């Protein structure tokens, strides 16, 4: 089981990361890659860049903890999570989640689970840079709702 979690300010190469995860293996039947990209407009207004602030130490730990939870929930054969911080120009990548499994259900579910958690639990904060200045992005209720669907009904181990 190959696991990679990385925080970095520099751009990443999604294709190289998926290649690294599958190289020389024939047990992987399904590979899901999610790439989050900095859009050139936010709520209709053109933006130049995002700046991502993060909590060093905690961000790595939170992501690693959720990767472990994904591995416990689904039969995964490999997981890669890369999250950037610092200034990210429009069109550049922000985040990468790659999940590998024998079958597609596990790969899709784990990738969505990880993305929902990254959006709501990993300590990152986005600031938008546009003509009208810098603005902190507000958390979305829809993201909390998306993350809530993975929560167990009661007790830590209850639904596992």
């Amino acid at each position, binding site marked *: 089981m190959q696991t990679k979690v990385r925080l970095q300010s520099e751009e990443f190469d999604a294709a190289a990361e998926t290649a690294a995860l599958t190289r020389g293996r024939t047990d992987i039947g399904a590979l899901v890659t999610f790439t989050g990209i900095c859009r050139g407009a936010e709520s209709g207004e053109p933006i130049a860049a995002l700046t991502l602030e993060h909590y060093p130490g905690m961000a790595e730990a939170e992501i690693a903890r959720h990767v472990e939870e994904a591995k416990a929930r689904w039969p995964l054969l490999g997981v890669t999570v890369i999250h950037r911080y610092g200034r990210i120009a429009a069109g550049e990548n922000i985040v990468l989640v790659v999940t590998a499994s024998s079958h597609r259900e596990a790969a899709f579910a784990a990738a969505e689970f990880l993305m929902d958690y990254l959006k709501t639990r*990993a300590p990152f904060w986005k600031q938008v840079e546009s003509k009208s200045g810098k603005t*902190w992005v507000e958390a979305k209720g829809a993201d909390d709702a998306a993350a809530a669907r993975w929560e167990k009904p009661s007790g830590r181990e209850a639904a596992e």
Partner: protein
Amino acid sequence: MKLIYFAWVRERVGKAEEDVVPPASVTTVAELMRWLGGRGEEYAHAFEHPKSIRAAIDKSHVRPDTAIAGAREIAFFPPMTGG
């Protein structure tokens, strides 16, 4: 104990981190926020809506009623917007 601030909490407080010694009567995260809010105008502004501020003790998410006893590092920040 060491306090760390992120995003607009950091901007409003005007510093990224500081060391504080709250009075013994301050025992929970919520009480700490209330106490910090009374430390001046910038703190009052930063902590005016404690419900929109999240906290972590020693790099783990905690709820407002969590006890702060033994904490080395307490962080305050807005809801996360990563991913």
